[in-house]
């Protein structure tokens, strides 16, 4: 789960990580009020969406007067922002963060992520703040410092020194400040089960202070249960509506742009099904994992979500029945076709426990647009043919 910049900064502030003063608003008038309260002399008007690259897309602008704050708020609020991290359709800006301007001397980059190879958190830092870090990693990898921190020992002084010296910070007072900054950030990363924190840029001010000018945070979904205050920060309007709807029913759904809807049990087989369709010359319309049980209700919901996509010309139901017997799943599918209005061919491939009985049940059901696939390859081939109208 990701949160907005203003929310990340609330968490930063709680842990003593320095951030500029700011106020989140949802209207132009509120933006003006916020600017007056902050006092100026300069303000930054920032679009709040769950994607990076907002500045380049025109969603972050500097105001030197209250009147400019009004103009910029009016311009940015309600605009559709397209960045390298959004889809081509972009994201609608519904919230703004009005923030004090900062006296920027240098820009750094700082992040904490999970290193899957080391199986521990990794602090990454760079003097190349404000840039896309993937570009820095690609073009000048030597400018990225990486410091793994074993949670069993926590953030030690030497971790901090590696960062400070690595960033070329030589002033002793400044070293203390950046080490304290990183230490607090690591603490909040661990305590809140964060998946990643990224501050880009982290700035050094003219007076030698370090401030998080931006803040991006993502959390481990599996741990949200023990952080209700963070779970409450979820902004569903930032997420794909169909994915959210699917998740309510225990289905894992990701939209793609092809023509063959897929309904599969298990994430690996679901991806494998998409790959097979592609291999056979078709295009998958989605990833959909119906989970282990695959009963009439979940299958019906799956059909409903897949059919919301007008591009879908055929649906391939690919279930490997293990503990859950195929004959039961077959009955569930038949039940689901009765409660959903399906106007495209449905190719069903059931394999595993009691597969022959299941095939018999499907054939005897006499559903006109239901085609039985014998195995994964056969089912995918039939789905590709059906989508082409063959």
């Amino acid at each position, binding site marked *: 789960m990701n949160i907005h910049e203003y929310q990340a900064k609330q968490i930063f502030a709680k842990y003593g990580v320095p951030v500029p003063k700011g106020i989140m608003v949802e209207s132009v008038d509120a933006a003006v009020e916020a600017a007056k309260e902050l006092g100026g002399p300069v303000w930054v008007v920032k679009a709040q969406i769950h994607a990076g690259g907002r500045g380049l897309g025109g969603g972050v602008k500097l105001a030197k007067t209250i009147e400019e704050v009004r103009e910029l708020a009016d311009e940015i609020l309600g605009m559709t922002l397209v960045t390298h991290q959004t889809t081509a359709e972009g994201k609608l800006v519904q919230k703004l963060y009005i923030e004090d301007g900062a006296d920027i001397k240098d820009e750094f980059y700082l992040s904490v992520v999970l290193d899957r190879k080391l199986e521990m958190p990794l602090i990454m830092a760079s003097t190349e703040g404000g840039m896309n870090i993937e570009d820095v990693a690609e073009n000048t990898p030597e400018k990225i410092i990486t410091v793994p921190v074993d949670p069993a020992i926590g953030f030690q002084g030497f971790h901090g020194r590696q960062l400070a010296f690595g960033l070329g910070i030589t002033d002793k007072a400044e070293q203390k400040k950046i080490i304290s900054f990183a230490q607090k950030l690591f603490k909040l990363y661990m305590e809140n089960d964060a998946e990643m924190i990224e501050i880009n840029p982290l700035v050094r001010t003219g007076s030698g202070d370090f401030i998080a000018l931006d803040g991006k945070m993502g959390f481990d979904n599996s741990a949200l249960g023990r952080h209700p205050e963070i779970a409450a920060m979820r902004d569903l309007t930032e997420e794909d509506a169909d994915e959210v709807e699917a998740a309510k029913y225990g289905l894992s759904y990701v939209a793609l742009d092809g023509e063959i809807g897929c309904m599969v049990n298990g994430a690996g087989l679901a991806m494998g099904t998409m*790959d097979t369709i592609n291999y056979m010359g078709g295009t998958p319309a989605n990833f959909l994992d119906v989970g282990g049980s695959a009963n009439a209700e979940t299958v019906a919901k799956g059909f409903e979500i897949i059919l919301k996509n007008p591009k879908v010309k055929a649906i391939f139901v690919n279930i490997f029945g293990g503990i859950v017997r195929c004959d039961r799943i077959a009955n569930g599918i038949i039940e689901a076709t009765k409660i959903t209005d399906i106007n495209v061919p449905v190719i069903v491939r059931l394999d595993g426990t009691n597969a022959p009985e299941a095939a018999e049940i499907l054939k005897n059901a006499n559903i006109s647009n239901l085609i039985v696939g014998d195995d994964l390859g056969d089912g995918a081939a039939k789905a590709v043919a059906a989508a082409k109208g063959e």
Partner: protein
Amino acid sequence: MSILVNKDTKVIVQGFTGKEGTFHAEQCLAYGTKIVGGVTPNKGGQTHLGQPVFNTVSDAVKTTGATVSMIFVPPAFVGDAVMEAAEAGIELAVIITEGAPVKDMQMAKAHATKHGMKTLGPNCPGIITAEECKIGILPGMIFKKGKVGLISKSGTLTYEGANQVVKEGYGISTAVGIGGDPIIGLSYNQILPMFEADPETEAIVMIGEIGGDLEIQAAKLIKEQITKPVVAFIAGQTAPKGKTMGHAGAIVSGSAGTAKEKMEALEAAGVKVVVSPAEIGKAIAEVLAK
């Protein structure tokens, strides 16, 4: 022979009396697995499925001599359960539970390693040595005994692969589900050498997916150490970047962890890589016919 578990392996179940634990322990017992007891705090002294229940893993190990624990506790308690098993002297913990917090697994795996305990999973279907011992939620009847070892991040692809191998007239020695979480226990680089050393295994099916670089590391190891033929499939060639595909660890971050790079690395290591999981059975038949 087989790897990790066999007909003599003594198994306890953590989360024994819960709904999932009960259902699957029953299935394992029916398969022939030597489940010798289970652990549910405050139910010590009771009997469940004809086996003794203990309050702690330590009590269970002392009384039964179990070496493997099958873990079905709820997600929030997985870390605790794994660490308890490690300190009690369990040699292998098979963690079936889905949705354990990643931080807990970092801590638990480090602790397990410190105590010399191996882990499988979390969020995995378990392990099966065909017609001897099943630990986890795999459908036992699919796995006919034979000479193909199987290792997979995905549950249903394990079944799919095994089923195709059997349909081609071969069978399975041991099948291991390693799970698709960001942090997992035993992985390709620990399991592949076990299959290499197992006289019963003559060929290996390796199923991977997008995200992380375990498959790339495996390619390196295969090139250097594995002489038995390996057939591999990597799921997620058509997955979009930056999206989690069901498994918490199945995500292409930036340009890292793509199916393409993994397939290329494996091919360069001499592995027979198939583009669709529908080809696994045929590919195994081909490499074994050589």
